[in-house]
């Protein structure tokens, strides 16, 4: 910080203190009541009195059986919802037996090759009583088909399948980078899922529009909100172009934000986001249903803010991030394990992350009253300022030809990279203090025990797939893939054909290859 100027993480200049004069008149209208337009104060009237947020630790590794064991453990410890992490081959449409991906199988998530793997992941866990989040994008329709067929085989009704599919491909091009197909067919697949989910899955969110990854890749809180809203506008336009009514899909759109370290900015930004989405829904898209303008979100605590140095300090960082998410009114929350700057988390660190949520929920008292920060001169002024700056960003994107166009040109990608570099320079120059990194450094800090990767898991996964392939009716699988291909070449919804592929024993790699063949593959233009 230069001179006496004090700023938030996203560069908003702060007064030494705030009073009545800091808040623009008309606050009452800008706030409304919780659960009512413009939803600034929360998506639901009773918020955590009615229902606590879902405690949804992101987990998955190795084989389906390994992941099933971790889920049983987490549920036995009081976790209330699941969140599936997939390995990179699954995210990018390769089977575990594919020689191009040998070392990546089961490494950062669970490997899913066929519907049988999905059945194993949920073995003994009744799908119709769970709420499950799937962090999956390019292969999202395939994973959803596998999950729905697994549910069907458990005897569950589609109407009882609850959860969220990330299915946000635009942010893959922006920041997360697990895309396969070019933007146009990718968007068509997203729309297929959203259309299918809106019609068939009343308890399931077909998309989670996320700013989390852009934020973790380096942008600031204002950019996170602006980019997420811009992308929600782009999706809504794409779905409408396909002939879907806004009020048909909008109530099932869900959102995903990061919770980082500037406490009041993090709590305020989601209040601003709720108000913005309501305005976008009503003014831009003419929503008639009230629920179309109600923003619900999942908050992910931040991996990017964790430090490899003095890893136990991350417990404190995560606690503050979780608290900011709760004060911001999150519907579900993931807290990072303190060891995640180094490895995937151990059972012990995951348990502590879950306990962090439980202590905030049951002991701290912060969940007793809805939107307790409302009316704070500072929080309201900050909420207004974040909103104003995020609108300016949306205007810039509109002027630049719209979000999809700017994404293709690599413009927001550059914003993110520049912002990330700025951050690191601030750390290097000590302008930004990072405890244990550039201040209060210890040379002999003790490393925690780390998760040990089971080198045999990938081999077991490959053996199981080979066995299944040897036992299956190849003609049935071939016919299902041919039927899928004709849907891909036309403009029908792919979901029924994908479910048929799942039932016929097709692998994720085979299905993804069929799509590669029809759609082609995307190669990122270097915008740097």
């Amino acid at each position, binding site marked *: 910080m230069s001179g006496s100027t004090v700023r938030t993480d996203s560069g908003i200049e702060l007064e030494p203190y705030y009073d009545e004069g800091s808040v623009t008149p008309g606050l009452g209208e800008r706030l409304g009541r919780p659960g009512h337009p413009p939803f600034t104060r929360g998506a639901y009237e009773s918020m955590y009195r009615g229902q606590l947020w879902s405690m949804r630790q992101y987990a998955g590794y190795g084989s389906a059986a390994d992941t099933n064991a971790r889920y049983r453990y987490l549920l036995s410890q009081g976790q209330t919802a699941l969140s599936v992490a997939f390995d*990179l*081959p699954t*995210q*990018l449409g*390769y089977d575990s037996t594919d020689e191009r*991906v*040998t*070392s*990546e199988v089961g*490494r*950062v998530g669970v490997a899913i090759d066929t519907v049988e793997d999905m059945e194993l992941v949920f073995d003994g866990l009744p799908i119709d009583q769970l709420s499950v989040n799937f962090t999956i994008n390019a292969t999202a329709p395939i994973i959803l088909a596998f999950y729905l067929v697994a549910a069907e085989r458990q005897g569950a009704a589609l109407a009882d399948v609850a959860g969220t599919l990330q299915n946000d491909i635009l942010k*893959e091009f922006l920041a*997360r*980078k*697990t895309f396969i197909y070019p933007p146009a067919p990718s968007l068509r697949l997203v729309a297929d899922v959203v259309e299918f989910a809106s019609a068939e899955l009343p308890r399931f969110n077909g998309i989670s529009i996320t700013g989390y990854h852009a934020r*973790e*890749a*380096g942008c600031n809180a204002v950019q996170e909100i602006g980019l997420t809203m811009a992308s929600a506008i782009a999706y809504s336009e794409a779905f409408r172009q396909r002939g879907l009514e806004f009020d048909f899909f909008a109530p099932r759109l869900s959102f995903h934000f990061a919770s980082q370290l500037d406490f009041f900015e993090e709590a305020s930004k989601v209040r601003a986001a709720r108000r913005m989405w309501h305005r976008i829904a009503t003014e831009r898209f003419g929503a008639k249903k009230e629920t179309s303008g109600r923003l619900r979100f999942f908050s992910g605590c931040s991996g*990017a803010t964790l*430090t*490899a*140095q003095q890893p136990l300090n991350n417990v404190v960082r995560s606690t503050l991030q979780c608290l900011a998410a709760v004060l911001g009114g999150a519907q579900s929350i993931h807290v990072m394990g303190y060891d995640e*700057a*180094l*490895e*995937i988390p151990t059972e012990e660190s995951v348990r502590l992350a879950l306990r962090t949520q439980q202590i905030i929920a049951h002991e701290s008292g912060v969940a007793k009253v809805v939107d307790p920060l409302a009316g704070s001169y500072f929080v309201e002024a900050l909420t207004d300022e974040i909103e104003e700056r995020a609108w300016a960003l949306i205007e810039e994107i509109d002027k630049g030809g719209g979000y999809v166009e700017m994404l293709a040109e690599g413009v927001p990608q550059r914003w*993110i*990279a520049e912002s*990330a*570099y700025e951050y*690191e*320079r601030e*750390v*290097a120059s000590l302008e930004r203090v990072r405890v244990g*990194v*550039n201040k209060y450094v210890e040379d002999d800090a003790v*490393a925690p025990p*780390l998760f040990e*990767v089971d080198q045999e898991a990938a081999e077991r996964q490959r053996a199981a797939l080979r066995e299944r392939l040897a036992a299956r009716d190849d003609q049935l699988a071939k016919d299902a893939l041919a039927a899928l291909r004709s849907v891909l070449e036309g403009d029908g919804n792919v979901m029924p054909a994908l479910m048929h592929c799942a039932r016929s024993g097709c692998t994720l790699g085979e299905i993804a290859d069929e799509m590669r063949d029809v759609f082609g593959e995307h190669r*990122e233009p*270097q915008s*740097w």
Partner: protein
Amino acid sequence: MTVSTAVRGRVVLAKPGLDGHDRGIKVVGMALRDAGFEVIYLGLHVRAEEAVAAAVAEDADVIGLSVLSGVHLAVTEEYVAECRRAGLDDVAVVVGGTIPPQDVPRLLGVGARAVYPVGTPLEDVVDGVRGVVDERRGVA
């Protein structure tokens, strides 16, 4: 061999494997660029042959890899082997990313010239690469 004074060194940066987390490699690339290096960033999913071909074409001093998905050992071995196969024994392969402490000696053991695990200060990466380049170019 004349050492150019205009450019401190030429660095090819690549993301091997399937991992798409590119915040770190871009930040390192920008820092190297600002320190006077010529930086050629090849992007995501780069195979060893592609990176080595680029290193030959660009007369690179260093190939820098960034891996956050845990497969750093396998890909580093692959890249080092490919460098040797192409006769680029003096091109240094350096690796950064989510690398647990116990893997640092292992990476050096399979032929990485330097390792920058998560948490390495940016200036240490730049200084480290400068040292590697100077050594290759015979600068005292």
